């Protein structure tokens, strides 16, 4: 057993670390304040091939794997969670379902432009009426001749309203199954399109530079062949998409947690109180030691889930544990880092304040912490 990254993964991690430090970090505060989508950063990420990391070269990808994507997300999150979630949403939620479940023609049509980062895809599952109970959507698609007619709305959809957004996969109710449960189908909606509207951006607590929209579909018509994979497969598709996505969110949380450690170490060596650096007091130093400990354990948890995924082994429970633990400790580290910074930690222009605001959503998105506990408990055979 060897927990070290391969030379190639380590080289990629270093490259993205450099990119995050040189390109992402210097403009993070600006985008956080203005809530502008960082088009210039995204363009450069596209040129580096980050949006194509886990896909084969044949579809315009980089020929890497899911771990490669996770490492890039972790390093970006050390600088700016908004940029990291933009990549995670675009690749993990946007492109991945096309690659996993799409027809050959759908893959050929969409993946090359998505891999270049010239187009962004979004995944619309959550509705205003509920996200945890995602298997029960109100959005309907009805076949009318050779077209689907979609009506409904989706809530909190990442990357759904940028100038680069070209595709939104929408989970729709398309009928009823024999067992009385709804028949769910993922329908590809190329955008912009008549009947599709991405409403105003939400005013969010964090992730200011990430694009999050409510979507309204009113008699939105798409060709019958816009079904992702097969009709009625929507439920299984999103469950598996979320299993993978959780590993990526875990990587994002680890990046944020590490950023909190790095900032705290730097600050506590410089900042003085009572004539000595605050890092010389155990009350501060031990707190930071604990932050590093948690970050390390969380990182091992997501490496393990990613390694299982790469080996084709079951990883559902490990993904849930990695997501649950790393999002929890990201919030802990962000809270502790702001404490280390004292009053400055409460000032928006300090990265730790941004990390503090950016951390909370990690316990909510792609399955709340309660959902992760449900999954873990069920995997243990508990009747919950």
């Amino acid at each position, binding site marked *: 057993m060897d927990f070290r990254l391969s030379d190639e993964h380590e080289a*990629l991690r270093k*490259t993205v670390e450099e990119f995050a430090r040189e390109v992402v970090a210097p403009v993070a505060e600006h985008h956080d304040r203005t809530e502008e989508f960082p088009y210039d950063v995204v363009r450069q990420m596209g040129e*580096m*091939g980050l949006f194509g990391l886990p896909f084969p*070269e044949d579809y315009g990808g*980089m020929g890497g794997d899911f771990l490669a994507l996770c490492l890039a997300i972790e390093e970006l999150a050390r600088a700016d969670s908004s940029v990291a979630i933009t990549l995670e949403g675009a690749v993990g939620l946007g492109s991945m379902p096309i690659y996993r479940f799409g027809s050959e023609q759908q893959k050929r049509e969409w993946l090359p432009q998505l891999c270049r980062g010239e187009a962004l895809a979004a995944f619309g599952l959550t509705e205003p009426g509920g996200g945890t109970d995602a298997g029960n959507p109100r959005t309907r698609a009805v076949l009318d001749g050779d077209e689907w007619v979609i009506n409904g709305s989706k809530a909190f959809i990442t990357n759904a309203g940028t100038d680069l957004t070209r595709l939104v996969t929408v989970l729709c109710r398309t009928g009823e199954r024999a067992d009385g449960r709804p028949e769910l189908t993922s329908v590809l909606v190329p955008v912009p399109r008549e009947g599709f509207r991405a409403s105003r951006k939400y005013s969010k607590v964090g992730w200011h530079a990430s694009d999050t929209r409510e979507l309204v579909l009113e008699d939105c018509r798409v060709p019958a062949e816009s079904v992702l994979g097969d009709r009625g497969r929507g439920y299984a598709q999103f469950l598996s998409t979320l299993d993978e996505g959780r590993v990526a969110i875990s990587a994002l949380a680890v990046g944020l947690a590490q950023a909190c450690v790095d900032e705290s170490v730097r600050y506590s060596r410089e900042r003085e109180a009572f004539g000595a650096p605050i890092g010389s007091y155990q009350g501060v130093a031990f707190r930071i030691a604990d932050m590093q400990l948690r970050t390390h354990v969380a990182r091992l948890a997501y490496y393990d889930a990613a390694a299982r995924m790469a080996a084709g082994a079951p990883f559902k429970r490990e993904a849930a544990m990695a997501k649950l633990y790393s999002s929890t400790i990201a919030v802990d580290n962000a809270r502790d880092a702001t404490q280390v910074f004292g009053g400055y930690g409460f000032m928006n222009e300090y990265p730790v304040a941004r990390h503090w605001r950016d951390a909370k959503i990690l316990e909510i998105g792609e399955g709340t912490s309660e959902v992760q506990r449900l999954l873990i408990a069920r995997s243990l055979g508990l009747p919950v």
Partner: protein
Amino acid sequence: MNIVVCVKQVPDTWAEKKLSPDDKTVDRVGVDGVMNELDEYAVEEALRIKEALSAQGGGGEVTVLTMGPDKSVETIRKALSMGADKAVHLVDPALHGSDALATSYALSKALGTIEHDLVILGVESTDARMSVLPAMLAERLGASQLTFARKVEVGTGTVKIERQTDSGYDVVEAPIPAVVSVVEKINEPRYPSFKGIMAAKKKPLTTLTLADAGIEADNVGFAGSGTEVTDFAARPPKQAGQIVKDEGDGGSKLADFLAQQKFI
């Protein structure tokens, strides 16, 4: 056109740099190594020249050459993952302690084993900051010397550069073969893609010892160096700054200070 880019691994720009007390050389063991930043611009420029020429149907390869301990392979890999075609690594314990003079000799010998029309380097390394290597190398190779380039244009049999000066730039043109050193204004180095990183693994890497390159041991290392570090001391701690209170004459006080320090 065949281009060789000389790259050097230096201690991480962000790390504290130290000299080892034993032999007064830069401590390269205890710190992370990175490609000398200016060399990234050199690699980028070589790749751009090659890409522009190949768009016009021209051929040629970009080779990276580095002299340094085993660890320097990391820097070679980075240049290869940016897109260089192959690499030559000059590595031999006898090279340790070489100054600029000895290094230029060793590199010129290694260059003798690689077909080249153009040699591109950064104007200086962030650890030694001598900025003499390009000139010494051109002299040893008997090649044209074009330094401080902020723009490079390749013609037929010639190279033309804009040479950065304090007040602007000079246009300098010279026949090939030539040694060109570049400043950071010249371009924006690319970040390697994962595809590039994977491809780098499969690119040819030749390792040369002194004997392979025909280097005479007497001319390199401490013995072959023309300079010697006799002593060194840690930088003194930062002095407290001087605070100028503006009592209506703040401007002239500042001007006096700057004049005193010979800034104006």
